[in-house]
């Protein structure tokens, strides 16, 4: 029997029909919806006069357009409230469970999918959002889709796909102090570029990946799309099972035992061939930070600003040849489907504890879900941030994408734990530096980009 990759195993288990020429119709086990892309698919389905085929295989949450202002219960504008209401009522009519604002289970779809045990190893999982690759951290085959494909999923519970090639990215060596999952994946993007993963499904492997907790693995897989890959995944192991056991949508009892037996067959066989391999030595990494307008524009925080992209430098207001550390900042955003989980908030709080944000810096902490917010508050993390002058906000996507109007001001410089430093992503003319939660917290305190390793604790 030929050795198979995890990707190939899961793909093959979902083929409903071979459509020829490498294109297959795949079953969609799990579908996640949020109000922004979800409501458009729902309206499109109505227009066609078709019902949802399997509403029980979809759940929804509110994240993109909800206000994250402390105490907020809706959108920041009437159009947002209207969209939320359409999504809510359409979902109710279709019989889709929605975790609504103010409820346990609400939050960024890529945070709550795993949190609720809706994301499972070996499933195909789709969502109308490019960061759906996040769910691959549990060994799911997951990717983002547009409105038309979303409507296709609602109508048929399937997706038509061309089989991609496979890549394995190994993270070897023991990461040094303050080196996080975010630094590891940014380093890979810096090495192979944002187009390096185009046409591939990526499996992340190696001892540094095994060493990560589930939240760190979610961060790694989250940035697969910034590598150009729709799919990123990590083989499930005991950590995955321990993380999932007892969660609301996870199987229980005899089904749990049966599921774990199946999940244990999923990891890539020894000797499985990948179309391409890459590796990163984690022992050599410094904390990473982006300097340009693409996630591939990344350097160690102890590095100097390169000169090969003048247009990006002009947009960012930076000079080549200067150290990136010491660059004055205006905003800090700790949140997003990349880095808003409890360990992320703990790492940031660890830096912030007993210190104050620089006077000129406006710093926000936006937990990824309602549940994370409660858990963080139970640990007193919110007080650490509030005492330091940070804002402690409600769960949502917020300033990562600004769909709810929460933006960085023009020409303001923001250290952000999110995933995209594109031109205008955080607002027109906004300047984004991507980094880990601890690096973002340190920047808020110092008032400038700083090497988090200089902070004691």
């Amino acid at each position, binding site marked *: 029997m030929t050795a198979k990759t995890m990707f190939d195993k899961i793909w093959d288990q979902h083929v409903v029909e071979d459509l*020829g*020429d490498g294109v297959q119709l795949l079953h969609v086990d799990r579908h996640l919806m949020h109000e922004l*892309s979800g409501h458009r698919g729902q309206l499109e389905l109505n227009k066609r006069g078709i019902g949802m085929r399997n509403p029980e295989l979809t759940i929804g949450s509110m994240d993109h*357009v909800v206000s994250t202002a402390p105490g907020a219960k809706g959108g920041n504008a009437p159009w947002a409230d209207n969209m939320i209401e359409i999504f809510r009522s359409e979902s109710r009519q279709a019989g889709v469970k929605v975790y609504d604002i103010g409820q346990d289970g609400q939050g960024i779809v890529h945070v709550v999918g795993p949190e609720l045990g809706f994301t499972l190893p070996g499933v195909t999982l789709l969502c109308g959002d490019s960061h759906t690759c996040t769910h691959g951290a549990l060994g799911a085959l997951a990717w983002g*889709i547009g409105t038309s494909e979303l409507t296709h999923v609602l109508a048929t519970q399937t997706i038509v796909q061309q089989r991609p090639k496979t890549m394995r990215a190994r993270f070897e060596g023991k990461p040094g102090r303050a080196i996080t999952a975010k630094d590891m994946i940014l380093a890979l993007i810096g090495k192979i570029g944002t187009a390096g993963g185009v046409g591939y499904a990526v499996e992340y492997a190696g001892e540094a990946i095994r060493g990560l907790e589930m939240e760190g693995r979610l961060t790694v897989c989250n940035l697969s799309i910034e590598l150009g890959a729709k799919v990123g995944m990590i083989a499930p192991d005991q950590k995955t099972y321990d993380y999932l056991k007892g969660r609301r*949508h996870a199987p229980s009892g005899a089904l*749990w035992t049966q599921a774990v037996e199946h999940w244990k067959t999923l990891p890539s066989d020894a000797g499985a061939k990948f179309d391409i391999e890459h590796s990163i030595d984690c022992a050599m990494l410094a904390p990473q930070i982006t300097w340009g307008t693409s996630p591939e524009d990344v350097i160690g925080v102890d590095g100097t600003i390169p000169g090969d992209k003048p247009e990006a430098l002009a947009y960012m207001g930076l000079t080549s040849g200067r150290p990136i550390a010491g660059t004055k900042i205006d905003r800090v955003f700790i949140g997003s489907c990349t880095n808003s989980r409890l360990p992320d908030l703990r790492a940031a709080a660890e830096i912030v504890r007993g210190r104050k944000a620089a006077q000129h810096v406006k710093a926000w902490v936006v937990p990824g879900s309602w549940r994370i917010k409660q858990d963080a508050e139970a640990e007193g993390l919110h007080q650490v941030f509030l005492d330091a002058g940070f804002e402690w906000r409600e769960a949502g996507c917020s300033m990562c994408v600004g769909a709810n109007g929460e933006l960085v001001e023009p020409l303001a410089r923001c250290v952000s734990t999110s995933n995209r430093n594109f031109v205008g992503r955080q607002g027109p003319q906004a300047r984004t530096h991507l980094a880990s939660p601890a690096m973002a917290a340190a920047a808020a305190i110092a008032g400038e980009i700083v090497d988090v390793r200089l902070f004691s604790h």
Partner: protein
Amino acid sequence: MNKFTILTAVAAPYLKKNVDTDFIIRVERCTGTPREQLGNYAFEMARFLPGGAENPEFVLNQPRYRNAKIMLCGEFFGTGSSREMAVWAIAGMGVRCLIAPSYGQIFFSNCFQNGMLPITLPATTVDALAKEAASPDAKPFTVDLEQQTINGTVRFEIAPRHRKMLLEGLDEIGLTLALEPKIAAFQAADRARRPWIYP
């Protein structure tokens, strides 16, 4: 869906690399703007000056390219967010065909759902075509999907299913709905294999 067979039209060179879908259509235009108006906001950060006036430097604002239906694009066009509004916005400007060395993968899929032909060619070929389109005596380009050629000479490859979808204006949802018995059979067998999937 609109069929795509042969298109003869002005081609505009826009070789900027890594043009992301946030750049093609800002997120606030994806929240309430009707689909048929999205073209007004395509590339707005490059197309308009801060005061709202047209930026004369942006290629599609130049009189000779104003009616372009073909765009020659840089590497990794349409990277980033899955927003299908990026395709709708470009289509809203009248563009039906893109020619680039590579594309963002979700954007690429979204093109075929909307009658947009994204042609992939080596960067050197795209550069040569862009030079041709930029020359003072440039003629309209002819993209023939049936023959898989540009101007009768440059051949391009396309997945057979994508070609068929565009040539015949097929609706993927309609095609899959016709396979309903297969989907039902898959689920019945799968329910026995993996019962924890089905609540």
